């Protein structure tokens, strides 16, 4: 389904930026929208266009409508941030927890290394004697 199709058009313009609920749009779609944000020049051009809207391309028409919403793209950006937030926090939390568990299991490593040393001490002393 095209992003500029009537379905998404209605969804974006009417629902999502109004409620701020990111679940109504997926993160992927929001990301596409953010990338679609017009430059200042394009924005002025679109705003000032007073001709027949039906003569514009689908994308231009879509942008012109979305620009009617105050801070439309800032809203989309905020929604994108929100849509990704949980997953990113979860990833970071898990990573830091993994490091913490690694720390907590260090005694296993230490115990094993001590064991190696205890086995090697007689061996080393033995070698030393052999060299002497």
């Amino acid at each position, binding site marked *: 389904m095209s992003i500029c199709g009537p379905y998404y058009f209605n969804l974006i313009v009417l629902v999502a930026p109004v409620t701020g609920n990111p679940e109504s749009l997926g993160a992927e779609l929001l990301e596409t929208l953010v990338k679609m944000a017009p430059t200042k020049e394009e924005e002025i051009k679109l705003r000032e266009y007073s001709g027949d809207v039906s003569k514009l391309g689908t994308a231009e028409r879509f942008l012109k409508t979305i620009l009617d919403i105050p801070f439309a793209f800032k809203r989309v950006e905020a929604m994108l941030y929100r849509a990704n937030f949980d997953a990113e926090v979860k990833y970071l939390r898990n990573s830091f927890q993994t490091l913490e568990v690694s720390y907590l299991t260090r005694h296993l490593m230490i115990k094993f290394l001590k064991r190696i040393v205890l086995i090697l001490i007689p061996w080393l002393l*033995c070698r030393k004697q052999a060299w002497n």
Partner: protein
Amino acid sequence: MTGNRMNVGTNRGDAIAFKLDTLLKLVDIKGVDGKTTLLHFVVQEITRSEGTTTTKDETILHGNNDGFRKQGLQVVAGLSRDLVNVKKSAGMDFDVLSSYVTKLEMGLDKLRSFLKTETTQGRFFDSMKTFLKEAEEEIRKIKGGERKALSMVKEVTEYFHGNAAREEAHPLRIFMVVRDFLGVLDNVCKEVKTMQEMSTSMGSASARSFRISATASLPVLHRYKARQDDTSSDSEHSSNSST
């Protein structure tokens, strides 16, 4: 000499007073056969001692020493399993994680200032303001987790390297060292297992180039010299492990 550098006699509190790197290099020393390393010897010794500490019931259960040996190997192999998080940690990059946190924080700052400047009221902003509060709390927690993790990593590094201040740009290198060691250990375990299987069928002890008695105390060491010409050390070996 290696022995001096290891400072095995030194006791710095609970810390092992030698560098992990040094120890790992040491166990990499090859025997006269050019294949087995000191680590093979160490694994065999552990396998043997695990075997002798097993209970009588298990002796009956397994019927012979092979059961012991396998159990001993499992103890060593179990280390690798128990340290699975260390292996995961080794694959991480702390700087990258930190930069994610910063990125998340910057995004929140942006959102905060956007919500401040915005005069329009409505469901979008109410909803976003609620989210902002929750997100601020989450980020506070995440930053706490980051700080905690970093201090723990530093402590581990200090433990194994003595001086974390001198530590390189990669804060998680210590976990990489351990992961690599566990990899080597896994291979050695497999090899020792094969050698033991061969020795049960062919009756020859392996990694013998390093062999001295596991219970060797100083007077026993004299025997080592004598034993260099005495190749029939198997009798001693079997008497140790058959108890």
